[in-house]
């Protein structure tokens, strides 16, 4: 009984540590979501809507740029179809986020629907870069990060809607914290993954999309473009590999035919390799021999 209680206390403390680790991970998002959420709440308040709608939207929609777009559409008096299509197009980039999380999210259990619902740009960036502390439940850690980010966004938007017109804080430039967060996470990705091509693809696709597309469309455009570049490169690499293989088999076939004509056994590389392995095994055996003798003696 005592032991069980101790075990329980241990688990509780580990849980607390895990929460603190998750909180530390999300601090930059806290500092970014508060001013951004406030800006959204302030806009919605300016459009004449009660702050409770800012709360409901941030709770159930939870999409930064999507909610800004919604305020613009509300002011423009758009119809439901327009809301649906514009939101689908703007947030379609999230489908690409899920593509790279299929494996990571398999086996997270009950929280999976929530993790999918709460997959914003910032949460995606944290989940794909942060390593889960060893010996700790992945699902709980992911859930804490996603839920904390969600909470910051709700708090910011309600704060903005309720106090926006009263408060006169100069938060200009504070949302650049998210850009700084993305820079840091990109560098971490650079260190943790060996692939270099994704960065080249991103610079190409990003620069092109900045020039060709409007600010509203550029993120989706650049992700589609970059993914296409990745696929094309993968296909071309597979093709060159296949060609190399075909060439190799042709070479060995030619060799075989040559030796057949001479009527002698080919002394090819494979045979030499086997011979060498046999020699090594023999040398290992000889080095083991004295040790075995010694063991026998001691017995």
């Amino acid at each position, binding site marked *: 009984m005592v032991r069980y209680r101790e075990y329980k206390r241990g688990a509780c403390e580990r849980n607390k540590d895990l929460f603190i680790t998750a909180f530390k991970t999300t601090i930059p998002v806290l500092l970014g979501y508060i001013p951004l959420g406030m800006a959204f709440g302030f806009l919605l308040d300016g459009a004449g809507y009660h702050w409770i709608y800012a709360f409901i939207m941030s709770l159930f*929609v939870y999409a930064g740029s999507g909610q800004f777009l919604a305020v613009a559409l509300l002011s423009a008096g758009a119809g439901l179809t327009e809301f649906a299509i514009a939101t689908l197009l703007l947030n379609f980039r*999230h489908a690409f986020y899920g593509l790279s999380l299929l494996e990571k999210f398999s086996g997270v259990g009950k929280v999976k629907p929530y993790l*999918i619902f709460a997959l914003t740009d910032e949460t995606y960036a944290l989940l794909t870069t942060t390593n889960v502390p060893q010996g700790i439940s992945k699902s709980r850690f992911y859930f804490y990060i996603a839920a904390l980010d969600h909470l910051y966004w709700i708090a910011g938007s309600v704060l903005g809607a309720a106090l926006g017109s009263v408060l006169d804080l100069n938060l200009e430039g504070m949302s650049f*914290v998210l850009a700084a967060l993305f820079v840091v996470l990109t560098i971490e990705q650079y260190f943790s993954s060996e692939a270099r091509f*994704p960065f080249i693809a991103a610079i190409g696709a990003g620069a092109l999309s*900045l020039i060709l597309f409007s600010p509203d469309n550029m993120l989706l455009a650049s*992700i589609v473009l970059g993914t296409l570049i990745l696929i094309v490169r993968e296909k071309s690499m597979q093709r060159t590999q296949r060609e190399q293989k075909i060439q190799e088999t042709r070479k060995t076939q030619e060799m075989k035919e040559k030796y057949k004509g001479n009527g002698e056994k080919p002394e090819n590389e494979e045979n030499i390799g086997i011979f060498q392995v046999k020699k090594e095994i023999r040398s290992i055996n000889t080095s083991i021999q004295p040790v075995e003798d010694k063991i026998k003696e001691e017995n």
Partner: protein
Amino acid sequence: MLDTLQMLVTIAVIALATFTTRALPFLFFGSREPPAVLAVIEKNLPPMILLLLVIYCLKDVQWLTAPYGIPELFTIGVVAGLHLWKRNAMLSIFTGTALYMVLVQFNIFSFL
């Protein structure tokens, strides 16, 4: 101005549309094996998307009028340099943000 019911229906539509975009890949590949090319994409997408998000933060910069995006590029350079040097995420992020706030609020690059 929408009334309460209209507003709630509109929010429900936006919420559903957003959730659909996020759930799509999980619905699509929930029961079937994803194609082989996806495995490679899966590994290479996060680094690419993160760098694209950095570039996305520059979407509203006016490159052709003063200060020509210099506060943004300068701050990103400082954050990257600091992070490559110290590898301390909090230090890099907060130094960068404070620097950027000073740069834009006091209009440091107004001489350009």
